[in-house]
């Protein structure tokens, strides 16, 4: 099988998901990795450049990360080249002249296996196909975004106060999320300090983003991000079904809540019935110590 992997970069580094896709594509057969060079992602110039590449190379499969940009680019590319498309898959196996895919549906409440005929375009959830051993950096061919296709004008970047220092939520190996139990945005330093001690990203429940305590982009759950980290720590989150849909595939789940009947304890590997204000600072210290020794 011939696979074209679409690379993405965060800053100067290739995103981890790109390495995961390249490794998966090597298992399947021939691989080419392309990166579309442009100042920032914008659909028409990126789709035009990529569609030209797809039409000339005729790969059986185009693989993208199911990231913010990858999902958008993949959908419009599939429509342009008239190929079958599956988004945000978590498993991928060749099956004759087709692929068998693991495809979460109904916001993670159902795991489907689907057959998708080749040629196809597929976006893969970051972290779903973890790298075995060290990541081999693939050779990346750069192609230019087709600026002549642009119809939009970039106006400005409006940064949120939280900035972008931390790892991205959907790719993080550790996620620490806060809920209403934190009582207000002024207490978020507890979440952030623990996330920093663990080297992870910060998330939030919908109650928290709806209340404006934290930006929307940090929301984990049905109308927010789906995350699959090695470790998910839920602080003061009761565990509404919509929140669970976004994090239940995490490898290890830790929940801290003072309500012993909170639903989050039904899925947590480690539960602590405690006040977050008392427990979290102690846990942050314990993590620093455990990581140092």
């Amino acid at each position, binding site marked *: 099988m011939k696979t074209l992997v679409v690379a993405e970069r965060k800053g100067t580094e290739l995103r981890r998901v790109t390495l995961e896709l390249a490794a998966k594509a090597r298992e399947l057969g021939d691989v080419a990795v392309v990166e579309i060079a442009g100042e920032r992602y914008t*659909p028409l110039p990126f*789709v035009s450049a990529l569609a030209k590449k797809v039409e000339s190379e005729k790969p059986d499969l185009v693989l993208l990360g199911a990231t*913010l940009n990858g999902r*958008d680019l993949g*959908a419009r590319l*599939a*429509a342009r080249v*008239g*190929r*079958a498309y599956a*988004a945000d898959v978590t498993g991928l196996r060749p099956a004759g002249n087709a692929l068998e895919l693991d*495809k979460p*549906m*109904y*916001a993670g*409440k*159902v*795991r*489907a*296996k*689907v*057959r998708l*005929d080749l040629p*196809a375009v597929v976006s893969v959830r970051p972290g779903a196909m973890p790298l075995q051993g060290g990541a081999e950096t693939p050779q990346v061919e750069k192609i230019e975004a087709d600026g002549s296709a642009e*119809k*939009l*004008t*970039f*106006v400005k*970047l*409006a940064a*949120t106060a*939280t900035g*972008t220092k931390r790892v991205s939520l959907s790719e993080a190996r550790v996620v620490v999320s806060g809920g209403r139990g934190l009582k207000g945005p002024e207490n978020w330093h507890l979440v952030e300090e623990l996330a920093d001690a663990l080297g992870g990203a910060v998330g939030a429940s919908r109650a928290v983003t*709806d209340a404006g305590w934290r930006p*929307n*982009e940090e929301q984990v759950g*049905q*109308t927010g991000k789906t995350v699959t980290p*090695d*470790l998910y720590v839920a602080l003061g989150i009761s565990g509404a*079904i919509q929140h669970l849909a976004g994090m239940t595939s995490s*490898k*290890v*789940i830790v929940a801290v809540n003072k309500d012993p009947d909170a639903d989050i*304890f*039904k*899925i*947590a590997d*480690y*539960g*602590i*019935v405690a006040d977050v204000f*008392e*427990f979290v600072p*102690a*846990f942050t210290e*314990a*993590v620093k110590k*455990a990581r140092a020794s």
Partner: protein
Amino acid sequence: MKILVPLKQVPDSTVRVKVAADGKSIVTEGITWSISPYDEYAIEMALERKDADPTTIVAVVTVGPARSRDALRQALAMGCDEASLITVDTAAPLAVARALARVVEEAKPDLVLCGKQASDDDQGFVGPALAELLGWPHVATITKVITVDGGVELWREIEGGHEVWKAPLPALATVHKSDKEPRYPSLPGIMKAKKKEIPERALSALGIEPSGPTWTVLSMEPPPVRGGGKILKDGDAKQIAEQLATALRDEAKVL
């Protein structure tokens, strides 16, 4: 300004989805159906434009089975002006986009707002595909739209903030969130919606084939059940914190 919101009727987000006896579909008997959550945000965003400028017309459309009429009725009750239904039991995603493209050509909206993805298949295909078929620019996952000279400013949420793009009209955007939570239908809204006509056409009457590249579902299963694990409760906060950190490092091996 005329705004068109294509929507999809899906199982309500509070429904505990169950796999049917055939092992490749879900139980739909007796469940509550609703407008897909991101489509509700798109409707709310359009209605916020209408609140600001009452000359704005907000139309909704869906391509789906006959039961989808209820979702259109709900959108009218929220305050949308017009609704239309294109019936088909199942259609490939590209066929849905083709039908919507036809509706756009007829209705000539200035702006099309789609939910960023439907909460059943979680694909996020139809919005960008519709823009592609129309040859329009699109901006994905926006949280704000502002009318400006010569078009609209679309605020796209990215890691760490927003990118602001200006699009000439007509344009399409997929919606991640609206400023406010989607409004509930008001009682007068419900009464008014009951009286409104919802014209209906079959997909075949538009001369559009329901076929197109798509997948075949082989099987469906619920996600593996996670049993509750250990509750750590011996000692004070500091001692429990240390037990937990040690367990995460030595037992779960995630530190």
